């Protein structure tokens, strides 16, 4: 029964995918959307079933469906596990997934390929579930690559624009760089433990006798995998570009779910990372650098979705910071709250873009507060949440990260705080530029300004609600999430009591957020500053605006050389190699041509050669004897 139910949970979105693929053209767009949504909703409901059951009984559900790959002594099953961690993830993946599906029904209504869109979304949910539900690393890898594929498909959904296709390709390839790391990590673990099953690996590690060096390398490789999928330094550049996709995609994949896969993986393998403090330090450092760097880029971006994208990168950096400090529950907590408010923000921005018929540049927005009240209010709530204002969800989770950082290392704490201040700044800059003062767009746009329909605003409201109260799952004092996740964590993360220091830090964090808000207020609302045109930007701002030229550096250091080598190989090495082979034939032919001259038809010469041959042989006979 449970097996069937679990299979249903997994396959329901897949059925949706198949249906929309094969019959999507034949049915009306609305129905396609509804079916797509219902399949995900169904999964969500099953998840809730499992979840309540788990809460009551506290027992995991793990089953191996069939043998998949067997390599020598390594036997890999296709198995699934439903435990605290995977169910938690499933809850918000399918939950937010459902909301975003609902949103998409309206958002994508004008697109001719709507059925395909829902098919891809369903497929994504299916792979995401696979990723989460697998009981070993290789099943996770299926999902891992599968969501990458869906991300590719959805970023490039408007395939007629080659720039979007480039972005999609870039996302896929950057992810693949990480995937190679992931795979190598898997190989090392497989060689060490002869299994990829989480619990078996955990058992093996617990029993001791492990090669920490090898595990260290494995952990590092796995982390490289995570940097690809979760957009960390140095592989984060694909995420901002991925905003080429339709906005629901950005919300679902590139904010709430897929990009958190790296965090899921590290949390899953917490017992491994706990053994390798060096790698944890690396994770923390990478996380905090990413957080600061991305936040600083976000300060000056003008594309509304780009701002949110850098914000996502930055927030993910904070989560990795938490992971690096061993504070897995904190990271997970932030993942969940972030999913709420960031999804809401993206959907809100989508609503704005929808109203402006595709306009994404904030310089051409403004004053939308009155026209789009629901969008405005929900986004404002989410912005407060992400800025870390009490009592919204983001406050609690971010505060815990800062707290952990403070205990761990003051520098990390300082950098993380800087990132939060910047976050507050650019988020409010976004709000001010978008919703306040006068509308700066064209007259044509102004005429069509409107609040989005209910299908769009409904998910916004739900998400805003969650962003408001989401913090309760791990309020200081109750620490429900901490307790809930205890079974899957190897080392217990002790929940800190609320002392003076903690309150002081909370105050500092809150103050920092307010500083950011005020700074933004002063600059953009009070002075009415509107960012300059692209070519008017100069100085350090230009560097930031151009994202520190990191894409250009990558192009110069990696892409261009490879292309140059490729061209060189094609134009020089290959023809030369070919020529070399041909030259053997040419040489033989040349000898033949020369030989023809010797064969000149003269009997005298022939006789002479004849005699010469005889003489040579006779002389040889005498010499040799």
């Amino acid at each position, binding site marked *: 029964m449970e097996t069937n139910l679990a299979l249903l949970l997994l396959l329901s979105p897949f059925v949706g995918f198949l249906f929309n*693929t094969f019959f999507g053209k034949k049915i009306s767009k609305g129905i396609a959307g509804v079916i797509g949504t219902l399949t995900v909703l169904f999964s969500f409901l099953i998840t809730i079933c499992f979840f309540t059951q788990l809460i009551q009984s506290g027992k995991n559900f793990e089953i191996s469906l*069939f*043998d*998949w*790959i*067997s*390599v*020598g002594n*390594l036997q890999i099953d*296709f198995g699934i596990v439903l435990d605290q961690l995977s169910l938690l993830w499933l809850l918000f993946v399918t939950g937010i997934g459902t909301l975003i599906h609902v949103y998409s029904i309206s958002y994508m209504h004008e697109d001719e390929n709507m059925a*395909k869109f829902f098919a891809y979304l369903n497929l994504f949910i299916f792979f995401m579930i696979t990723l989460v539900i697998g009981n070993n690393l*290789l099943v996770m*890898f*299926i999902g*891992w*690559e*599968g969501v990458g*594929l869906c991300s*590719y498909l959805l970023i*490039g959904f408007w*395939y*007629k624009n*080659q720039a979007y*296709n*480039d972005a999609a*390709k870039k996302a*896929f*390839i950057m992810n*693949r*760089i990480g*995937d*190679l790391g992931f*795979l*190598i990590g898997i*190989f*090392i673990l*497989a*060689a060490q433990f002869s299994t990829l099953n989480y619990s078996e690996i955990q058992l093996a590690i617990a029993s001791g006798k492990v090669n920490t060096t090898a595990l260290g*390398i494995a952990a590092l490789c796995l982390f490289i995998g995570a940097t690809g999928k979760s957009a960390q330094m140095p592989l984060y550049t694909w995420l901002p570009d991925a905003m080429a996709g339709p906005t629901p995609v950005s919300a679902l994949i590139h904010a709430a779910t897929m990009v958190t896969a790296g965090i899921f993986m590290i949390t899953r393998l917490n017992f491994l990372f706990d053994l390798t403090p060096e790698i944890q330090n690396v994770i923390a450092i990478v996380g905090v650098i990413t957080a600061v760097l991305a936040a600083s880029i976000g300060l000056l971006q003008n594309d509304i979705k780009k701002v949110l994208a850098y914000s996502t990168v930055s927030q993910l950096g904070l989560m990795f910071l938490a992971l690096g400090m061993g504070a897995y529950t904190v990271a997970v907590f932030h993942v969940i709250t972030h999913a709420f408010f960031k999804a809401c923000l993206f959907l809100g921005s989508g609503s704005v873009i929808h109203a402006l018929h595709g306009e994404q540049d904030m310089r051409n927005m403004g004053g939308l507060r009155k026209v789009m009240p629901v969008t405005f209010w929900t986004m404002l709530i989410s912005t407060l949440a992400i800025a870390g204002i009490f009592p919204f969800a983001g406050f609690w989770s971010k505060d815990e990260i800062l707290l952990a950082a403070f205990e761990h290392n003051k520098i990390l704490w300082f950098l993380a705080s800087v990132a939060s201040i910047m976050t507050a700044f650019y988020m409010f800059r976004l709000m001010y530029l978008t919703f306040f003062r006068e509308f700066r767009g064209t007259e044509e746009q102004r005429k069509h300004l409107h609040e989005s329909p209910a299908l769009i605003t409904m998910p916004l409201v739900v998400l805003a609600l969650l962003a408001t109260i989401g913090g309760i799952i791990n309020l200081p004092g109750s620490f429900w999430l901490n307790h809930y996740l205890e079974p899957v964590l190897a080392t217990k993360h002790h929940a800190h009591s609320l002392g003076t220091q903690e309150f002081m830090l909370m105050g500092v964090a809150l103050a920092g957020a307010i500083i950011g808000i005020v700074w933004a207020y002063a600059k953009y609302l009070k002075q009415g500053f509107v960012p300059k045109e692209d070519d008017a930007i100069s100085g350090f701002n230009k560097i930031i605006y151009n994202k520190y030229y990191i894409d250009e550096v990558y192009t110069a250091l990696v892409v261009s050389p*490879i*292309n140059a*080598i*490729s*061209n060189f*190989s*094609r134009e020089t090495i*290959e023809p030369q*190699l*070919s020529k*070399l*082979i*041909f030259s053997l*034939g040419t040489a033989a032919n040349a000898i033949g041509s020369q030989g023809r001259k010797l064969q000149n038809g003269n009997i005298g010469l022939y006789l002479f050669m004849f005699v010469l041959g005889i003489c040579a042989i006779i002389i040889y006979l005498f010499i040799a004897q």
Partner: protein
Amino acid sequence: MDVSILLLSLLIGAIVTYFSGDKLASKVALLFSLVSFMLSLNILYSYSNGNDVSLVREWISLPKISFALLADGFSLVMVLLTTILTPLIVFSSFGKSVENAKKFYALVLFMSFAMTGTFLAADGLLYYIFWELALIPIYFIALVWGNGDIEERKKDVLKFFIYTLAGSLFMLVAFAYLYTKAESFLLQDLYKLNLSFQEQTWIFLAFFLAYAIKIPIIPFHSWQANVYQKAPTIGTMLLSGIMLKMGLYSIIRWQLPIAPQAAKEYLPILVGLSIAGVIYGSILALRQKDLKRLLAYSSLAHVGLIAAGCYTLTIDGIHGAVHQMIAHGFVIVGLFFAAEIIYRRYNTYAIGELGGIRSQAPKFTSLFLIVVVASVGLPGTYNFVGEFTVLYSLSQINIWFVILGGLTIILGAYYMLKMFQNVMLGETNSNSFSEVTIYETITLVLIISFLLFFGLYPKPITDLVHPSLNEIFSTINSLK
């Protein structure tokens, strides 16, 4: 019933096809290739029931040569690959008129016959004969039915023929030498030989030359792209889908067990060379302007990985290589078929002239994309199983091998997606592109379903090849 009936059915098929006339030829060829497919299934069934389906008959008493066909799991899998792909390849040409069809299809079936023989032969000379026989039909197929400038094609195809023949003639010398040692060509007798290290080295090199050219491993690949490009697509499919597997199969079946010490001694060089092929092929594929050339180089990269798996001398590597061989056979046929579908409509392979097909042919786009994704080795497709296993075996040899070999994951995605983007996506092409026909759809769907099914459930193949590979592996590892 033994396996010789398979050979017989294909040979008779070739003859009957020739005499059936141009109109019926393709159907007759399909019929016979399907019959051979059924027969091979039947043989597989009887093999898995524990019956002995091998055949050993005296053929020539002096020098002692037997008509020996060995049917174990490994060879049966390769035979199945041949007998599945042959009808598929024949079928893929339906709906397209072929000049001089009876000759063409007769040659296709004859080639299939020779390749089946190569996979089955358990006598060195018989094996060699089949090996060479497979070369003749593909030569004519590429020469007569190929595309592009005839003068260029003549040169390239002749180069291919001479090059591959050159390699295999050295293999023949090695066999002759082995015969003087063993007084027999039978596989098991050759396995038992006690060769000195030096002898093994020379024999290994002679075999290597033959296989490295056939597969091809760099730097012996210079025939490949030209021939793939210029041969008719059916020929390219046969070449890349099945024929190059002959080389890989032979590495496992002949080269490694006969000269294991040499293989062990030169392992780093061999694996290194294979992996260099992976990287070099991938890099070359990045900037190709011709679709078929691009696919040719992608194939170069993929088979490099398979060869690397074989030469790791680990059981995992060999297993992975076998999986990957089969997967690659299907995927490359699918890719070349997609290229052919485009060619039928636009009459060009130039990537620069393509693009914007997706909006006109969504069904084709989806099918093509799945094949592309499979060739990139996405988990869930059969290619992943092989790629994963091979890379795993590389990681056991040296971590650097897996890092370098693993670049295929990145570069492969890069050039394949780039190709897909340039060929299929973008603004709608001004030339109209009609959606895939029913024949084309069936072909692609069959390929895809195979790849997906075994991607999720490779166990049947694993179970089939496992015992025979283990046996070969123990021969490699037994002290010599």
